[in-house]
């Protein structure tokens, strides 16, 4: 057993830091740290291209498809340093969700077409999975794709498509056979142009005021049949692969670690009973408790990343990452809001958050984004497999219940 970061890894960390220092401006970093939903689109695309050109945009991809060939610890260091430095967060849908599906299941033509543009971030991807009647119970989805000559004709409704307004392409789960059991009749298909005829979209405003997700209505949308990924009716396996391929992202450990710094910053400036809030015993005790929980979660992430031996299945432990990660997001956001105190009540919509410079001493620069993030974190225990579903998985995988 060797539980230390090696000298090589520390050197790698310095290389990443130097690269980040070189490319990120103060303005970009400020806007990233404010953390509005959705993040600044232009900067995110620009950063994806910068990383793409460096060969660093897809740390988890195999080298043959454009990944940098890092070991898990390098990936961990890279993710943390990017987050800590305030680099824009790259959108997951292309790089973490459909990308791996494509290089695992798709045809050489599909790989050649889509992977490079995902690596460079030139095209953003809409995820069309959930439907009004198919949330946790995804297999009951009803959107159909019927073959008509060289095209599939798609009809149905999708929702919870993240940041829909920025998406050029889409990957959709559709029912291609309704005569078999639900899981067996599903396919995954790529829509090349989200503005194609028959597609209508409607943005959904979340309780924090963010238009962070949307609905997609498909009305006789014609998609070339070569856009189907893999064989027809194998979409369920692809979807399962997509949801479990990367087991550690859902822990949101890098956000958690950086948010703790942010809370430290707030609590050093805010005052209570004539002293910095950070010295308030009740506050510092809550912060200490959460810090310890984040430290544990970080090592749970490392254990999964490094394939550490365990007497329990990695499926169960991946669900732990999702449960504890989402709970901690909520607890951290609650603590941040409590640190702000009454100032947390102010509403900052996205553009206000980006524009705020903190020049008004009554409204310091650390205020915007915090409360919006708390509201957004309510969704963390819901999307990507609700907490209750994760507990079902653990009961089954760890104990055979």
């Amino acid at each position, binding site marked *: 057993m060797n539980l230390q970061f090696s000298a090589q890894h520390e050197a790698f960390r310095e290389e990443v830091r130097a690269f980040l220092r070189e490319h990120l401006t103060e303005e970009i970093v400020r806007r990233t740290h404010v953390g509005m939903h959705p993040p600044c689109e232009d900067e995110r695309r620009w950063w994806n291209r910068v990383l793409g050109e460096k060969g660093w945009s897809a740390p988890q991809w195999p080298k043959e498809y454009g990944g940098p060939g890092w070991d898990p610890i390098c990936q961990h260091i890279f993710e943390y340093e990017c987050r800590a430095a305030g680099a824009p967060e790259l959108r997951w849908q292309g790089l973490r969700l459909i990308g791996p599906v494509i290089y695992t299941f798709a045809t050489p033509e599909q790989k050649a077409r889509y992977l490079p543009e995902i690596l460079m971030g030139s095209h953003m991807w809409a995820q069309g999975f959930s439907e009004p009647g198919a949330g946790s119970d995804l297999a009951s989805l009803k959107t159909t794709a019927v073959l008509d000559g060289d095209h599939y004709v798609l009809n149905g409704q999708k929702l919870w498509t993240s940041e829909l307004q920025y998406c050029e392409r889409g990957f959709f789960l559709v029912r291609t056979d309704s005569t078999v059991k639900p899981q067996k009749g599903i396919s995954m298909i790529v829509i090349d142009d989200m503005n194609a005829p028959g597609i209508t979209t409607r943005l959904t405003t*979340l309780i924090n005021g963010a238009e962070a997700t949307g609905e997609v209505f498909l009305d006789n949308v014609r998609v070339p049949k070569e856009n189907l990924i893999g064989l027809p009716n194998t979409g369920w396996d692809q979807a399962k692969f997509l949801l479990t391929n990367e087991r550690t992202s859902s822990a949101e450990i890098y956000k958690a670690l950086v948010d703790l710094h942010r809370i430290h910053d707030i609590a050093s400036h805010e005052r209570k009973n004539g002293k910095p809030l950070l010295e308030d015993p009740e506050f510092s005790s809550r912060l200490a408790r959460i810090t310890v929980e984040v430290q544990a979660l970080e090592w749970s992430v490392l254990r999964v990343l490094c394939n550490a031996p365990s007497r329990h299945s990695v499926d169960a432990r991946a669900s732990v990452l999702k449960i504890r990660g989402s709970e901690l997001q909520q607890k951290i956001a609650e603590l941040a809001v409590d640190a702000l105190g009454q100032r947390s009540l102010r509403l900052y919509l996205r553009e206000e958050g980006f524009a705020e410079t903190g020049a008004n001493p009554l*409204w310091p620069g650390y205020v915007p984004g915090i409360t919006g993030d*708390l509201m957004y974190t*309510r969704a963390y225990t819901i999307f990507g497999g609700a907490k*209750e579903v994760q507990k079902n998985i653990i009961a089954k995988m760890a104990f055979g219940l």
Partner: protein
Amino acid sequence: MDFELSDEQKMLADAAQRYVREECTLEAHRAAAATPEGFSRDHWNQFAEMGWLALAIPEDAGGLGGSPVDMAVLMEQLGEGLVVEPIVDSTVLCGTLLAKSDNAGLRAKLLEGIATGECIVTLAHIEGDGRSEYETQVGATATRAGEGWTLSGTKQRVFHGQTADYWLVTARMEGGVGLFAVARDATGVTVDTHRMIDGTQASDLSFNGTALGADALVLAPGATQAALEEALDRANLATTAAAIGSMEAVMAITAEYIKTRVQYGKPLSTFQALQHRMAEMFVETDQAHSILYRSLSIALSGSAADLGKAVSAAKALVTQACQFVTAQGIQLHGGIGCTEEYVIGHHYKAMIVYEKRYGDASFHLARSAR
């Protein structure tokens, strides 16, 4: 001891319940949040007509002289309807402060205006590092100028500050901190207004040598501090009742939703884990009701110090209960619960506002044990 509502209280509750059911729709709530004032003048006028704005005002000033229990009965219903109108700020908080004034003319004029709804009054007190109205230094000054005073200083987060006809402003004067009534159209005031998460407005006020008349003093030094504590405590009783109404609404809406929402071929309501969550929400809400009764009991008979501790105990418990109930209300709904188009999330936001106004959970927990 008798927990039965009086006939008058039953009528009050019924009327408020009916009003909320018929008028306080989510659409109305969202529409109000989009107005410049951040609340509904229609509601406000109706409240006045129903006599609700007069409920907390003393009879000798043209009000109904209702007790904290009466106000709680009303507010629990209004909380179910996500009421954001400044009824607590104007009638309870400022109403209590004004009722204690020796300045007979000003007291009569403003209380009558509050009771009829023609006049909205709000407190301008927090400065600097002050985390709440209970925990703020006062640096603003009122210096003698002839018969009157000159007011200078900055007040933060004056809720409904842009809308209020009068602000009750604390300022340092000879002998300590006093309380003044300042009309919104006074000279030398800058108003910087911000939207809050529930759609309401709060303003930062800068007074730069604002001239106050001889009749502007509401409470002299010596009377101000105790009056502020009591008024804030009464405001917290009212908003705590509203929070409990909100929790009841969340439970009812959520129970209904999970009975109809089908996943994996059966209604969500058949999953034991969700049933137990509902039961836990019920436990929290029941305890919230109970501690409100306790604090009302002490409001009716206890000393001011007892009241402060009892109100803080209630708020410490209800904030936690309400946090759990509203957050789990969202969770049991799933994705739709996170959207602005659905009502549950607005109850969650109302919970945050409740917790952060008039002293937060952490402040009140500590104060409950003092």
